[in-house]
């Protein structure tokens, strides 16, 4: 039985907590794995380094990716995911506070599936998370296999 996991790449503990709360409020029941920098995100995705022992049945259904990350930044993580055959089709949603035009252009250019700016208003944030959960976890039909 595969476990459809949400991978949350977030270095800010407050944002992590709030995102988890928003997911819970949106009645999204998938398990959420949290990693705190770009290197860890790639390790988990590729089952290497500190996450070499990640159970194989844990399949990332969607990656929620912050852009400003320690060590390796979000856009670099996205580039590597897209360059690899096993991860190039995994849905990646950029979740950031940046509304810099360049970040948007480069994010989409590297193959991001969505770009969401975290609203300050928590009510709006919950709304956004509910919508993206509904779309990527319920409505969207993943590639077979």
């Amino acid at each position, binding site marked *: 039985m595969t476990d459809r996991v949400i991978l949350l790449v977030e270095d800010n503990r*407050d944002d992590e907590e*709030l995102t988890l709360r928003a997911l819970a409020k949106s009645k999204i029941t998938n398990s959420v794995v949290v990693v705190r920098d770009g290197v860890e995100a790639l390790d988990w995705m590729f089952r290497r380094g500190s996450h070499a022992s990640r159970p194989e049945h844990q399949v990332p259904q969607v990656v929620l990716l912050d852009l400003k990350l320690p060590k390796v930044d979000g856009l670099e993580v996205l580039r590597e995911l897209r360059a690899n055959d096993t991860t190039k089709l995994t849905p990646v949603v950029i979740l950031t*506070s940046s509304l810099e*035009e360049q970040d948007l252009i480069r994010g989409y250019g590297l193959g991001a599936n969505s770009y969401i700016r975290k609203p300050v208003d928590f009510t709006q944030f919950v709304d956004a998370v509910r919508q993206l959960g509904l779309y990527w976890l319920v409505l969207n039909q993943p590639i077979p296999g």
Partner: protein
Amino acid sequence: MTDRLRQALAEVSAAASAFSEQMTDYDGLLDAIADSCARALDATCTLGLFGDDGTTITPVALTAVRPTVEGLEGMLRHPRRYDQSLVGQLSPETGNVFVPEIELSGLRDRITPEAFTAIEQFGVRGFISVTMRVRGEPLGVLTVIQHDTTRPPLDELDRDIATYLANVAGFALANARLFRRVQEELIGRLSAEQVAERTRASETRAIQANAFIDAIVENIPAMVFVKDADRLSFVRFNRAGEQLLGIPRGELIGKSDFDFFPKAEAEFFVAKDRETLRNQQMVDIPEEPIQTASGTRWLHTRKVPILDELGESRYLLGISHDITDRKRDMAALERARDAAEAASAELEAFSYSVAHDLRAPLRAIDGFSQALLDELGDALGETGRGYANRVRSSAQRMATLIDDLLRLSRVTRSPLRRQRVDLGELFRSTIAALQRDEPARRVEVVTSGDLITRGDPRLLSIMFDNLVGNAWKFTSRRELAHITLACADTEGERVFSISDDGVGFDMAYSQKLFGVFNRLHTDSDFPGTGVGLATVQRVVARHGGRVWARGEVGNGATFSFTLGDTNAT
């Protein structure tokens, strides 16, 4: 050897030496040829020379041994067609004719009537014509005519003597011509040099003596110098030049650049001088360094050729402005501008980063206040819940403020791209968006005038969000509000205006309207961040336009703006 032959040899030899003596006197040589030939053969002798194209022949010398042959003299110096001369008619192929005894009856049909008449008239008994050639080129014809019927007719020896004389005469003529040409050239050159010398002398006098020009040149606050075109030595120098170089003109006149400046510098100056004189065109040297008594100075120099009446470059006029100070000021200005731009860019980056990073804690404040309400709402009580909600609304308000600042920063940073924009359409779509958020509001919208212009659509859209948004906001207490967009030509400038019949403002504060964070209303009256009009002003400024406002408390407001040169890109 017969006496006759010996005598002929003596005559021919005398002729040859006479020819070489006449080498330097062309006309004298022509006469000497005819004379020698007549003496050697004891007969009348004429010499004719071909014209340049070889179709004419001109008799140039005649020596008659018997009493004058009338009429022959008159033919001298008159060119005639070669093909109508006796030789030309009788023997055009060889150019040589030997007729010891003329038979008039046989000749009549072979020559023109004029030639025939001449033969009759001059009493020609027999004649020899020999063409003189040098390296195959015909120069002329030597003709020996015998009139005397009492003597033996002309014979082969006479013909051979005539032929020999013609050969020698031909070479003498060719040499004499060469000599004459060389001499003419030498004379011509000499006189040109004399003319030039005289011209130079008078020009030098003129350039030294003209007091009027002196006064001008002396008092021009730029270095003025004149160089001789040949030697490039200074012939004039003005006071400003002396002061600039720190060298008295007495030391400069007659010297060249190499006497005062480092070699490389002097070579540069001289190269530019030569270029000016060669092309006979002004050369502009925007910047050149020069070593002076007070160190390196920078000059902007123009070099002009001065020509004589023959069109030759005679002098070089140089005018140099000392641009050292201006150059230094420009450099300082440039450095200051670079520094200002760097500082401004840094500030923009900083403000963007601050605005960006400030949002994260705000999210936490808002989010955890909500978490508090969710988890402990009941325990907080009504007052507690009120406080938590005020924390949230403050955080959200600050977020709005930050977003406005971000937008303001973006308006400043993004490049301006003008294209066709329909402000009327932009106006209506902005109103439509506001109406969607507040469907209950009743607002009448009017547009007038030509509202098509050229501007950056993104920036204009941000500007309209603010201007139209303000009009919408400040008319919110009206049952039926009116918002107008109009365009009018004022003093050749297109002025756009957005007017409303809202609460207006006191003109005393009109100067404060466009400052960042400046507000004329409390937030409880009309919410706002005080960044909107600052953003509007930046958008207008980016377009090179102006914005101003008129208003009256309780009587609406009008914001007018221009968009600069709308034809710019």
